[in-house]
């Protein structure tokens, strides 16, 4: 979670002074032209596409059922479709790893959406209106940052997942969403403060635009790009967060298939069979890496000063 704090230092994007730029190109178009030439972006994007495909249609990658386990195959080596072998319960490790992508991506996506909406609204309100509202909201963000993320998440997830019948998906989404919006709010606030002083906002106000129109049509589109970077990286962090909560036993449970659960279950048996521990770990780390790299590449494209 520490990398998010590195991101907070990213300022609102500005035009690059030393870069030739075509007059008819928007900021996003400019960034896209930059992104297209970035190797890191294409590697990260390819990884993300594979993971999303895996999450949406796992049957594209394996025809085996991750819950079809036979103790007779305990710790058996690779055979046929089961290229990673079988774990201590005789489940197909490859199938389990592929199906593990679904809940991870679903949870991280929903949680990031929640965090994004809260963060953007709080940051927009605090930055645009300023004054006492800004003071109250900023203090509240400070208070939330006073609670180390995992500690707060454990308490909340434990409460939310007390229902024994649920598989914990909703509980983890709410937990990660409710606790993850602070950085987005801070970045949004500073971007809004710098955007609202621009001439085009003053021009729109002179033409009679109300605060709602000013905020959502003029300030928001020009202040959103650093938040998008933060949210992309937050996606990766939320995937890691889901795995950590599931590992600790307050995340996904029951019949859910998750990388975190797989790591927790197979860890104690690693001495006899390492593959069931190694493969979910590799997939998890690669997915987190893909989102962090994607965020880094987008930030570089939007903010050339940081290079």
């Amino acid at each position, binding site marked *: *979670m*520490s*990398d998010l*704090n*590195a991101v907070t230092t990213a300022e609102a994007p500005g035009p690059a002074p030393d870069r030739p730029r075509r007059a008819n190109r928007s900021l996003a178009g400019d960034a896209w032209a930059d992104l297209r030439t970035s190797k890191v972006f294409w590697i990260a994007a390819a990884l993300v596409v594979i993971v999303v495909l895996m999450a949406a249609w796992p049957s594209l990658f394996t025809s085996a059922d991750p819950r079809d386990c036979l103790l007779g195959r305990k710790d058996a080596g690779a055979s046929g479709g089961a290229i990673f072998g079988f774990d201590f319960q005789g489940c197909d490790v490859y199938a389990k790893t592929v199906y593990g992508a679904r809940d991870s991506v679903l949870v991280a996506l929903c949680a990031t959406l929640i965090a994004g909406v809260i963060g953007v609204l709080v940051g927009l309100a605090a930055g645009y209106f300023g004054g006492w509202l800004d003071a109250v909201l900023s*203090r*509240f963000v*400070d*208070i*939330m940052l*006073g*609670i*180390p*993320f*995992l*500690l*707060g998440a*454990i*308490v*909340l997830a*434990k*409460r*939310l997942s*007390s229902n024994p019948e649920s598989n914990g998906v909703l509980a983890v989404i709410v937990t990660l969403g409710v606790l993850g919006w602070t950085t987005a709010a801070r970045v949004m606030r500073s971007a809004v403060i710098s955007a609202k002083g621009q001439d085009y906002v003053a021009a729109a106000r002179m033409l009679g635009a109300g605060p709602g129109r000013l905020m959502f049509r003029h300030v928001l589109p020009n202040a959103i790009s650093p938040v998008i970077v933060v949210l992309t990286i937050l996606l*990766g962090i939320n995937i*890691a967060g889901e*795995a*950590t909560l599931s*590992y*600790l*036993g*307050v995340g996904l449970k029951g019949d859910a298939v998750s990388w*975190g659960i797989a*790591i*927790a279950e197979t*860890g104690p048996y*690693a*001495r006899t069979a*390492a593959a069931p*521990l*190694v493969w979910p*770990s590799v997939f*998890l*780390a*690669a997915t*987190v*890496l893909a989102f*962090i*790299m994607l965020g*880094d590449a987008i930030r570089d494209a939007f903010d050339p000063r940081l290079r």
Partner: protein
Amino acid sequence: MFRFIVRRLLQMVLTFFGATFVVYALMFAYVDDPLQALVGDRPVTDSQRAALNARYHLDEGFFAQYWHYIKGLLTGDFGQSLTGRSIGDMLSQAWPVTIRLALLSIVIAAVVAIGAGVLSGIRRGGVFDTVTLVLTLIVLAMPIVVLAPLAQLVFGIQLGWFPPTAGRNAGLYELLLPALVLGSLVIATELRVTRTSVAENLRADYVRTAKAKGLAPRRVIGVHVLRNSLIPVITLIGVDIGVLMSGAIVTEGVFNIPGVGFNLFRGIRTEDGPLVVGFVSVLVIVFLVINLIVDLLYAALDPRIRYE
């Protein structure tokens, strides 16, 4: 300086009440009947209900309950775990090994991050810099649940370089692998901040002056650049403590180190609610106090901070 300290202390009071209130509110969210949750499926008789209410003040309002909780925290009474042990006693037994582990990992992280960060900051774009940047990216992407079990598997079991677990009286050698794992959580950010800040400071006027005076490069880097570059790294320590606390829960669980994180890990596994809440509250307070100290230290090191 005095006004800064007073203002920072007032902020700390606000954050303390706010953070404990949020933790308390999170804990009580969506629970209809905590007594029923405590006893499970059996019906609760009226006399049991009365006895438990008297003990836990559950029949009072939310704010009254929060008051009892705060009073306990401030007087050092953290309650009892479900197994009947005093949480204060468990904490005092668990702290020593956790503090040793944390100090070791902070030292390892600082030495590696500052050493490598200075080197890559000096030769920006060189081979060493590129390799370090790629390595830090990979480390950043490794969640602790991946890092700790894999390190135990590879270095503890397969290669056998380190003991795979550490006990209560673990020495330096036993704690080295867990401390490396824990430290690597914060190495990447510390290294990147050091690198950027060294690269920026190398262009500063005072560096040019120092070079013009004819000082040896070793002295320019070691004294002039390093001292000014470390200031932003020090602010990171406050944030890093929070990361280390989160990391210690998994790391101590994996390596079987009976510290604070291990107790919390076991409390979560055994559904011991009071233990989890007691430990989390204490850790949040420790985090706030350390951040206060870091801020004050920071202001003492850099006089510009006080006159915002």
